[in-house]
């Protein structure tokens, strides 16, 4: 069977299928987790946000939330979350909210505003109400990679930079996919008994290639990344969901978001963040945590939610936030083709289970789903304890354990070189880069960043990118390629900084430009014009 799409859903489906003994190929046109998976809040919802408006999603969230705490420990930080009521909000809503949470099975404790200020000092001190819920923070890049690793461990094959050019259809049956290898330009056909369309918002195009119609309703959301954490708990506004009402502590940074705008399907690849979006995010963000007004913003980014029309309503007026699994044999008379879409990054595992159930039904496989109980690679028992961490491991090693969990044991750390920091902001060592390049499907620096956090810190690649490029050039014996990759990476970093390029972020960017262009002449050495955008 073939899975199209290397986001969390595709990866989760690949893992589930592989664990049930199916022969799996996953293809992704870009890098893994480049779509909505890598372009959200990094929030592991408790479900509280949906409790009032969408009880079903809320229940799914809390159940998956509890599962992920077990199976994906190394991707999750158990921060808990607050839903705060500000003086401009209606305190009555808190009651409605808490009752809805209880109905969905979400623990929701009303706490005193003073207690909220104590446990989360960054919160707006003017708050008049607070509810504590089991929100958490999750790293979608790690989560996706862990699923892919486990899928491969169980025999699956996964290919990034392979784009579906068309489906092989024979007598109302999808029999495989035609692929373009974007790295060498070659074309290849792969056959399978079932093709699962897990391409998110791009799933509409894949379906079109099969001659079936799915109505997606892309909803775009923009977010801002701040240079460091101001909060250590997720902070939400206790009101009906609106713009910029969630602040999430993600790893070393915090992220405010999102906006929400319907956009035409033709524009889903345009991820540029506008000045208006930045303004809205800041204006609303400082109501949650006033210190955001003076905290350095390092990047802006946007993603597209793959909302889908309810299938019984072709007009598209009724949109579901829930999971949609379409068996196109029943729906469109096309055998061997399944679409899994809708849902959230948060419910990727459940989506994988539902899609795999549909695949198994077709193939007559009766193996049970075990993904809810079996820990992902990296989250097995035996990770070092907190006190062990401080005693036995260097800073870089601890940062790596934080990222890779028990898999960090595979990172070489026996000498000064392997322990030397490549990325000082995020504590990425030479050993970790080696591990990522050799074992985690890294083709370029952008891939490397998603696997390790190289270049995600406040300098946005100023110091680490040339060190990392030099290592990549060494591993691949390709200096020219490494140079081009370096230029493309710095360009990609600048794109995210541009919407927020003022103050220290602008100084930072100017120094980077002065070093690479002024001092090293990188712009002269490498011509990026006409190169395909790596993003």
């Amino acid at each position, binding site marked *: 069977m073939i899975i199209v799409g290397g986001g969390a859903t595709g990866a989760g489906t690949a893992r589930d299928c592989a664990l049930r003994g199916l022969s799996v190929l996953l293809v992704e046109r870009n890098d893994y987790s480049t779509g909505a998976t890598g372009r959200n809040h990094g929030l592991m919802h408790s479900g509280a946000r949906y409790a009032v408006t969408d009880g079903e999603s809320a229940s799914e969230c809390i159940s998956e939330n509890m599962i992920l705490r077990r199976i994906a420990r190394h991707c999750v930080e158990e921060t808990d979350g607050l839903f705060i009521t500000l003086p401009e909000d209606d305190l009555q809503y808190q009651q409605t909210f808490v009752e809805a949470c209880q109905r969905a099975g979400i623990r929701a404790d009303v706490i005193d505003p003073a207690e909220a200020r104590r446990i989360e000092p960054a919160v707006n001190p003017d708050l008049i109400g607070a509810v504590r819920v089991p929100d958490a923070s999750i790293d979608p890049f790690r989560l996706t990679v862990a699923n892919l690793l486990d899928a491969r461990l169980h025999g699956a094959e996964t290919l990034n930079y392979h784009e579906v050019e068309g489906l092989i259809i024979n007598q109302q049956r999808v029999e495989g996919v035609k692929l373009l290898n974007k790295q060498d330009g070659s074309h290849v056909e792969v056959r399978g008994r079932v093709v699962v369309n897990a391409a998110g918002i791009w799933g509409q195009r894949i379906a079109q290639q099969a001659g079936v119609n799915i109505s997606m309703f892309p909803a775009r959301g923009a977010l801002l990344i701040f*240079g*460091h*954490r101001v909060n*250590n708990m997720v902070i939400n506004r206790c009101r009906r969901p609106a713009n910029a009402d969630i602040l999430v*502590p993600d*790893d*070393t*940074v915090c992220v405010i978001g999102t906006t929400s705008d319907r956009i035409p399907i033709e524009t889903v690849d345009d991820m540029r963040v506008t*000045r208006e979006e*930045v*303004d809205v995010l*800041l*204006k609303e963000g*400082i109501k949650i945590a006033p*210190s955001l*007004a*003076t*905290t*350095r*913003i390092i990047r802006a980014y946007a993603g597209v939610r793959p909302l889908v029309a309810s299938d019984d309503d072709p007009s598209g007026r009724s949109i579901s936030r829930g999971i949609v699994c379409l068996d196109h044999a029943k729906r469109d008379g096309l055998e061997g083709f399944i679409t899994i879409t809708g849902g959230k990054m948060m419910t990727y595992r459940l989506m994988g289970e539902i899609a795999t159930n549909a695949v198994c039904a077709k193939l007559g496989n009766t193996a049970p789903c075990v993904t809810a109980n079996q820990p992902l690679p990296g989250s097995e028992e035996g990770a070092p304890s*907190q006190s062990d*961490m*401080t005693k036995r491991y*260097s*800073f870089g090693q*601890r*940062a790596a354990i934080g990222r890779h969990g028990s898999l960090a044991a595979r990172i070489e750390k026996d000498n*000064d070189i392997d322990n*030397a*920091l490549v990325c*000082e*902001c995020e*504590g990425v060592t030479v050993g970790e880069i080696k591990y990522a390049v050799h074992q985690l499907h890294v083709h370029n620096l952008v891939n490397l960043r998603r696997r390790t956090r190289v270049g995600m*810190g*406040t*300098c946005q690649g*100023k*110091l680490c990118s040339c060190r990392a490029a030099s290592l990549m050039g060494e591993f691949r014996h390709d200096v020219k390629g490494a140079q081009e990759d370096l230029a493309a990476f710095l360009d990609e970093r600048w794109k995210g900084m541009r919407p*927020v390029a*003022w*103050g*220290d*972020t602008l*100084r*930072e960017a100017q*120094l980077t430009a002065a070093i690479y262009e002024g001092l090293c002449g990188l712009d002269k050495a490498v011509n990026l014009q006409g190169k395909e955008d790596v993003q």
Partner: protein
Amino acid sequence: MADSMQLCNLSENNFEQCTKCSICTTVCPVAAVTTDYPGPKQAGPDGERYRMKDPAYFDKALKLCLNCKRCEVACPSGVHIADIIQRARMKATMGHRASLRDTMLANTDLLGTVANLVAPVANAALGLKPTKLVMHSVMAIDKNRTFPAYSRQKFTTWFKRHAAKAQDAYPNHVSYFHGCYVNYNFPKLGQDLVKLMNAMGYGVHLLEKEQCCGVALIANGLYKQAMRQARVNTASIRQAVGTKGHTVLTTSSSCTFNLRDEYPAMLEIENSDIRDGISLATRFIYNLVDEEKVKLIFKQDYKRRIAYHTACHMQRMGWQLYSIELLRMIPGLDLQVLEQECCGISGTYGFKKENYERSQAIGSILFKHIENARVEAVATDCETCKWQIEMSTGLPVENPISILADALDVEATRRANSAGD
């Protein structure tokens, strides 16, 4: 709108103004000699982001920081890098019990009080090889180190017996924060200051209450005690500066820096009202000469070749020029100004067995410079630099105040500065 809101990015310790240029790391004396220390940028602004995520990310390599502040001097963005590192150490070790060794090294005044009573015995015992070996193995104080000799008489005792009465007769007045070194080890420096100030027409007075400034307490993690002593000192200085209108003079750059800058930055003791009233004696005297309020007349036959070493904390204050220019006023003094390098001792740091080799490796560049300068003595404003340079080069090291007092024609200066002269 966004630009009007985000006028400045200013979080605690302004670490986010760091643009990762890494100049600080290039001037860090520790990073230059060991790969165990990641350098001030990583230990400071970079590591701070991780510590904000989880304090458990505190890196024990931060203990290798000398707190020399050279990183802060070099930083083009004005980031208080060393402060970030020191505060991180403080948070990580708050509530831990300091070791006996560290407590002993940190309590310079307690040790001094005891040692003064039995000075000849203490000096002899501390200098004996068996004592050194016991201290090396039991206390982890390096066997190569020699404790500064203790004086038989404290400076304050001498002052009360021989100098105090005469001070009121002078037309102008200053207070003097003598510090532990002057009081217990080397009263002569205090006596030299009194001699110098008196000749210029200034009476010298002790503070109402003076305790050890606590620089070693902070470095060794005895924060509560440091805070108690800092409060006592700040109150006494406030009385001298506010009530009496005195400038409070010092003869140690580290005490000065601690009283003025580390109290608010490390111990959160507000002193902005009196900070300008605390001055190193050389700076005070230089300004008096510069404003033509006093005249200094030196001996005709004075002739020496001396090198000036800028202590790291002196450089952090930017005050080395006062000492250098004042010394240059001495006609017979051939002054060689050394390029600023860290001597490696950093207070009690170099006394610890685990730091000894690193300490000497750091200082080696300075020692080479001193050797090349071919001088008979070295001048510096810091007493711990003095011990380190004396031990490592064999040359005598003197405080600029002592050199000035030695070169001064006291009678001529006194006459030149007497009213109506």
